[in-house]
């Protein structure tokens, strides 16, 4: 074996890595040659030639190419290892349950509750230890978390590709802006109204697209998004492209938070929040909305309705054959997904205080979709992380100023190439079986109710104790925790 490590062998090995990188470098330089070396003087339509940028390009490409090849090799090696292990039946022990991920470890540990409280406390304290700009980024980020989770219901859970999601965001924002502008309605009245309007528009869009699926659905939703934007741009009532300004921020029980309370804080309490009070207030509103959204989406996903959506995503024919009304499932998915966009839109309008149709372009839909896919389709923590990356990363990249969007685009490609399932892969909730079955042992249910469970013909007796029902229901919430414990094994005969 040691003979393999002769100088010439190592040289050959290194060369085999460097050669393709050199080729790639040459190719990219060739590609970039005219666009990067020729510059046009627009006044007299002459051109000048300069090779100054080429060495940087070549160096960068060479380094990137080496790294790219290394990671691609690693990726394919991992795939092969996995396949070999599988074919040899190595770790595929089906009784072991899904492999614990860090999420199940954290969420499943007995410190889960404490962990969540710490996180929540951190989120509550955050605006007070940061500057106004960061609070604004945080608000934007949380708005996009809401949007991402809402779109996740449509795309990630139900499998309906929606490219016009920004329209519902716009509808929410304009609902508040218009009602506030013309009728002086307050934020708190408009918040549910904005959500409701978006829901209704979602239904309206849902009806014509019931028969469509896949990319046809995508293009119709895209059209819907564009139609909404164009109509907002052309109507007089929305003030067209000039938009609506001076939208009121939310008040606190009728108290105007713009100005006065800050003076109060500074003068009487000696605390200087260092920023506008209403911004902090909006932060807490959107934080509450995000928490509400997470709870709702989690509950939906693990309910009868959510499973219908999942079934629809997985197989449209089989889902109908299982008794699921596909039309209804599609419509609820569309309508509910839109609701959150509407709510987020209202908050957005109150945060930015000026909206015009330019804020709701197709690019917005694309960004929200990127959040869902980048984060991990159908995964709630994934979508949250995705929203952080998509909204906060470009802010961080401001350091690179004009190269910002270039890097952002490149990162999206790299992310998909090396982690196509998203940052956090969606995992299914684990249910633990509480029955000790088979060998004449009483089931937990029997033990509690004293009656043998009837099966097959009718559902178990409704006289079940509420405690049991609770523990089962909690089984869902605690499912992650239970997933760590081995499910008790019943006899696995071919048939009973």
């Amino acid at each position, binding site marked *: 074996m040691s003979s393999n490590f002769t100088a010439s062998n190592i040289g050959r090995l290194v060369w085999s890595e460097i050669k393709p990188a050199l080729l790639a470098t040459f190719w990219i330089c060739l590609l970039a040659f005219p666009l990067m070396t020729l510059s046009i*003087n*627009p*006044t007299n339509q002459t051109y000048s030639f300069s090779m100054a940028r080429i060495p940087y390009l070549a160096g960068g490409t060479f380094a990137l190419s080496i790294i790219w090849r290394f990671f691609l090799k690693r990726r394919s090696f991992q795939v092969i290892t996995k396949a070999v292990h599988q074919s040899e039946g190595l770790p595929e022990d089906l009784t072991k349950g899904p492999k614990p*991920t*860090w*999420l199940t*470890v*954290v969420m499943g540990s007995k410190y889960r509750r404490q962990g969540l409280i710490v996180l929540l406390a951190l989120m509550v304290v*955050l605006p007070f*230890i*940061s*500057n*106004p*700009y*960061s609070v*604004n*980024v*945080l608000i*934007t*980020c949380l708005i996009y978390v809401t949007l991402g989770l809402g779109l996740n219901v449509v795309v990630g859970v139900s499998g309906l590709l929606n490219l016009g999601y920004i329209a519902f965001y716009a509808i929410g924002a304009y609902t508040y802006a218009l009602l506030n502008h013309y009728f002086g309605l307050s934020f708190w009245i408009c918040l549910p109204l904005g959500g409701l309007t978006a829901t209704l528009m979602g239904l309206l869009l849902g009806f014509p697209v019931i028969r469509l699926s896949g990319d046809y659905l995508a293009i119709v939703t895209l059209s819907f998004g564009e139609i909404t934007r164009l109509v907002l*741009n*052309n109507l007089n009532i929305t003030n*067209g*492209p*000039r*938009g609506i*300004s*001076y939208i009121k921020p939310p008040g606190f029980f009728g108290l105007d938070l713009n100005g006065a309370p800050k003076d109060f804080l500074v003068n009487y309490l000696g605390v200087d929040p260092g920023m*506008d009070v209403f911004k902090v207030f909006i932060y807490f509103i959107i934080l509450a909305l995000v928490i509400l959204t997470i709870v709702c989406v989690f509950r939906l996903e693990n309910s009868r309705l959510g499973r219908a959506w999942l079934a629809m995503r997985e197989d449209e024919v089989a889902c109908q054959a299982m008794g699921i009304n596909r039309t209804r499932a599609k419509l609820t998915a569309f309508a509910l997904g839109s609701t959150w966009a509407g709510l987020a839109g209202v908050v957005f309008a109150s945060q*930015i*205080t*000026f*909206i*015009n149709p*330019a*804020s709701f372009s197709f690019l917005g839909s694309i960004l929200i979709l990127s959040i869902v896919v980048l984060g991990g389709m159908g995964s709630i923590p994934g979508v949250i*992380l995705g929203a*952080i*990356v998509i909204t*906060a*990363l470009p*802010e*961080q990249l*401001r350091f690179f*100023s*004009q190269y*910002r*969007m270039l890097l952002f685009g490149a990162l999206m490609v790299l992310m998909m190439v090396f982690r196509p399932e998203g*940052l*956090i892969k969606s995992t299914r909730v684990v249910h633990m079986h509480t029955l000790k079955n088979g060998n004449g042992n009483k089931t937990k249910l029997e033990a509690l109710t004293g009656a043998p469970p009837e099966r097959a013909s009718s559902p178990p007796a409704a006289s079940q104790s509420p405690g049991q029902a609770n523990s089962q229901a909690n089984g869902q919430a605690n499912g992650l925790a239970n997933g760590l414990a081995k499910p008790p094994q019943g006899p696995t005969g071919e048939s009973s």
Partner: protein
Amino acid sequence: MKTVVKFLAIFALAFFLPFGASAQAQETTRIGYGGALLGDLASYGLSNLYGLEFAVAQANAKGGLLGKPIEIVQEDDSCIPDNAAKAALKLASENLTLILGHTCSGATRSALSAYNNKVIMISSSATEISLTDDGASPYFFRTTPRDDEQPRLQLNYIKQKGFKKIAILHDKGDYGSALALSLQANIKEQAPELEIVLFEGVTTGEVSYEDVVSMLRNSQAEVMVWGGYHSDASKLVIQMRDKGLETVVIGPDGLYDQQFITMAGAAAEGALATGQADISGTDAAKAAIADHHTRHQEEPGTYFFYAAGAAQALFAAVEKVGNTTDLDAIKKRLQEDTVETVMGPVRFDAKGDVIGAKFILYEVKDGKFVPVN
């Protein structure tokens, strides 16, 4: 656990970097620039930035501002209101109190609301009337003349030439559509005898304007007034002339740009535009143009002088006040003192509009904008 680390890393990267970033030693006097540096309207934003850079370079050569060299902190808003608010908050969080910007009217309005009257802001390109008229922004100034001048000038010309049928087209943007609506209102009020045969928005960035040309021909308009920027106008004019349509074209200051003539070539001949009165004739302006040539190898852009003038006026006011934080004092100086700048003497009125800035009507003759007497 590797993923936990990854998660934390991303989280930290996302949020905690900016918290530390604002703590910097103030060895310089800093001025913020907010406007379009990227996106479709980047060229306007860049001409603003170059103007500011010119003024800063000049001031720094003479020892800076308040005894310290001036440093520019720039943020892009791509002329999108949403981004402008973000950029504004970013600049505000750096404790900047002097801002030059923003480029577009819509973005400026949203930025104003984000600054929340905590900075002195001078725009050299936001022309929309209400920005100063509504009185909500006491610390906002602008060196560019306002939009309401332009429709008036255009209408006068139309009446003078005896045109009867008018087509008004706009680019559906906040700037262009406001101008178009304002002209429409002007005509209804002051010249109801004129007939508006076509009032339409045009989608910009399209692959063809031929259908618009067809509509124009069908409407038999004698004059077409464009509300929007030169980039679309030049395409429209080329296609109009290509199809043998001789309708007179009048545009706003968005069209008054040498770029329009370069782009439209022969088709630009005879087109009219309202534009800021020519200020490149003075010695100071000529020196600035020469400086711009050496720095950027091109002619200065539309708003170069207005940005440079704004910056020079601002520097003078700050120098007199002696600090950058007393906004009311700076405001007072800006309104009371007349400062000699590359764009001529600059002083602001009570609303914040520059005094003496005027639009005049130009016509394209032999590849140049020539004032119409």
